[in-house]
């Protein structure tokens, strides 16, 4: 059912791929952002001691 629908409307496959890529990019940015925040905390902690 789903396969038949997708093979007729190939544009939805494009959409799914784009969404997966976007989710990946977003997740990567989120991880980077958190890492930066942790480093920020560490550096501030160091200077406070």
């Amino acid at each position: 059912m789903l396969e038949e629908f997708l093979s007729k409307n190939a544009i939805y496959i494009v959409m799914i791929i784009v969404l997966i890529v976007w989710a990946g990019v977003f997740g990567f940015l989120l991880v980077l952002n958190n890492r930066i925040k942790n480093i920020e905390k560490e550096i501030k902690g160091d200077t406070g001691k």
Partner: protein
Amino acid sequence: MIWKIVLFLLIAFVSIAGITFPIVAKPEHWYEFPLIMGLGENAKIIFFHVPTAWLTVIAFFMSTVYSIKYLRKKDLVDDIKAHTSAQLGMVFCILATITGAVWAKFAWGSYWSWDPRQTSIFALLLIYGALFALRSAVEVEEKRAALSAVYSIIAFITVPFFIFIMPRIMRGLHPGSADDTNAGTVVNFQMNGNMLLIFFLSLIGFTILYYWMWYVGYKSMLYKEKLNKQYH
């Protein structure tokens, strides 16, 4: 945190809508796009290609603003901000060039045809390239910051000239060029309300994305510099 979720949903929505909403001759439902003469399905690139080109210009502008700020205050943080913005600008510039070239193959028949806007994005690529070449040639931090700031300001003031010169020298192929009889002028690009809405949502989404990437980028470079100074 809230704005990150908003950003995620915004670009996800733009991707879904921009890719899958059908293009019909007479749009009746809210999810249908109007048919633009001579473009057809190719018109959908506007939701992804134009924002990257827009970000190229925004990043270049931000880089120049922080360059001016550096020259006034001599604060190296401003130089790092300008540099990160230029790096992001380069990335989006390459993206805009490639997406544009692929699209041009199917809409105009060849990857590259020296359309005015293709020429100006090529000039932007050259400017970014020259900026990075200059940066890599100078060792001393303050000198590097001052020289690249000066260069990016001079490069920025040449940009308006391209806007005036290009359309006079070459015929435009881009939808919305002055002599385009199919799509009309830029202002009225025959987009209906929902197409315009999604287009502007896409612009907003990509701008927020740029801001976030820029923030992460310059913070990481800032801490790298700080740690370098601590251990050497």
